[in-house]
């Protein structure tokens, strides 16, 4: 047992997880290191890149800037909880269809943001999508195809 560890219960992708964590553990490190759900990525670790985006109670957040302890009893969704290789979420399928990535490092964060965006107040234009996706940086510059993927899902919704 880790010295000074404290108990926390999280519901991750629909499954209850009773954990003991160092109080400093971010939600990001908890998901990746404690639970070995490595789809969520650590980019800047300071809320500037969006690679760590997950959903908390259905809303997108930067998991790097949040303590696991602060989410006791809350519902966390990571990219692993969105779809499966055999049954992709429509946004995952659209990212493939529209080639919305290159290296893929930012992609899980992009997709988690994009799925949350579907339920947020967002205007119809590409510019509206770009504005609401500005918290997700893609160093490969796949932005046009990311926007196309999101717009495809929105049109088909």
């Amino acid at each position, binding site marked *: 047992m880790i010295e000074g560890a404290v108990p926390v219960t999280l519901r991750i992708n629909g499954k209850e997880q009773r954990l003991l964590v160092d109080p400093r553990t971010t939600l990001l490190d908890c998901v990746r290191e404690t639970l070995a759900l490595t789809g969520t990525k650590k980019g800047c670790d300071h809320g500037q890149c969006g690679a760590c985006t997950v959903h908390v109670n259905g*809303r997108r957040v930067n998991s790097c800037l949040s303590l696991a302890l602060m989410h006791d009893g809350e519902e966390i969704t990571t990219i692993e909880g969105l779809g499966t290789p055999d049954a992709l979420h429509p946004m995952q399928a659209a990212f493939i269809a529209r080639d919305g990535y290159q290296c893929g490092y930012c992609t899980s964060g992009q997709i988690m943001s994009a799925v949350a965006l579907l339920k947020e107040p967002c205007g119809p234009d590409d510019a509206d999508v770009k504005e609401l996706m500005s918290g997700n940086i893609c160093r490969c510059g796949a932005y046009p195809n990311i926007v196309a993927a999101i717009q495809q899902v929105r049109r088909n919704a």
Partner: protein
Amino acid sequence: MHTFEFIRPADAAAAVTAAAQASTAQQGADVRFVAGGTTLLDLMKLNVETPARLIDISRLPLATVEATPDGGLKIGATVRNSDLASHPTVRRDYAVLSQAILAGASAQLRNMATTAGNLLQRTRCMYFRDTAMPCNKREPGTGCPAITGSNRTLAVLGTSENCIATNPSDMNVAMAALEATVHVQGPKGSRAVPIGDFHLLPGRTPQRETVLEPGDLVTHVTLPPPITGSQQVYLKLRDRASYEFALASAAVVITLAGGTVTRARVALGGVGTKPWRSPEAETALVGQMANATNFRKAAEAAMRGARPQTENAFKIELAKRCLTHALHTVAMS
């Protein structure tokens, strides 16, 4: 990151009691409240903030937006920025606030950040954020390398020889133009602080950024009743189109009658060491025709006291044009 004790108090009174043991509520505080965590966790990872105790206030009943008896609005300390920006009353009656919040950060951060956390947002000055560097705000008496160093993004209004750090918040600028009041519950009771008195100029004590004392908990912010017939706008200028701090911004709440300005509230962001209400611009506007010449005069008045640093003289003209354009936008709407 230094380790800490994590406390979740049962109510606001317990939060105040726990925090009252702190030596200070300012830079170097050994006890910190946490709700969204977007500033605090960032700075704890950099060892700029090293609290021994964190008091989680995110589950206290401080997350509501309600009408006040006088027709104004009461905004809870832990209302998420995204919820506040999309609140129907805010969008209708306090549009400048909604626009300012949506001009800041990212959708993810706005889902986390809270009213009180945004009020207490810390500067982005790179010397403050880097513990290898001297900084009078972080370690009083060590000096301000920004004055002779990288200061392109820093302040031109309200600076001192000890600190030129900019207040980075967009929300605070709109709150200043709306004449918000910050409500604080502390060990000695509750008090209401006008937003103009809440943040402090750096002077000789840049480590003191607000009037908060140990145990003081911001519980809510109130806005006065909306100004009937007012036009409002928040204009933000920055190095990229989105997800960037302001180089200059302007919040304007203005009332016109027959082409004449009858009432004006103006605040500037990105250029001041605190959210910068400009009574000089307001005085220059009231009673004058709403036209380009008078808007420029107001902007000149707003920036008359500006003092450029080595790299940021451009901000003075940028802020003038920002305010002029914002005034033009509302006057034409």
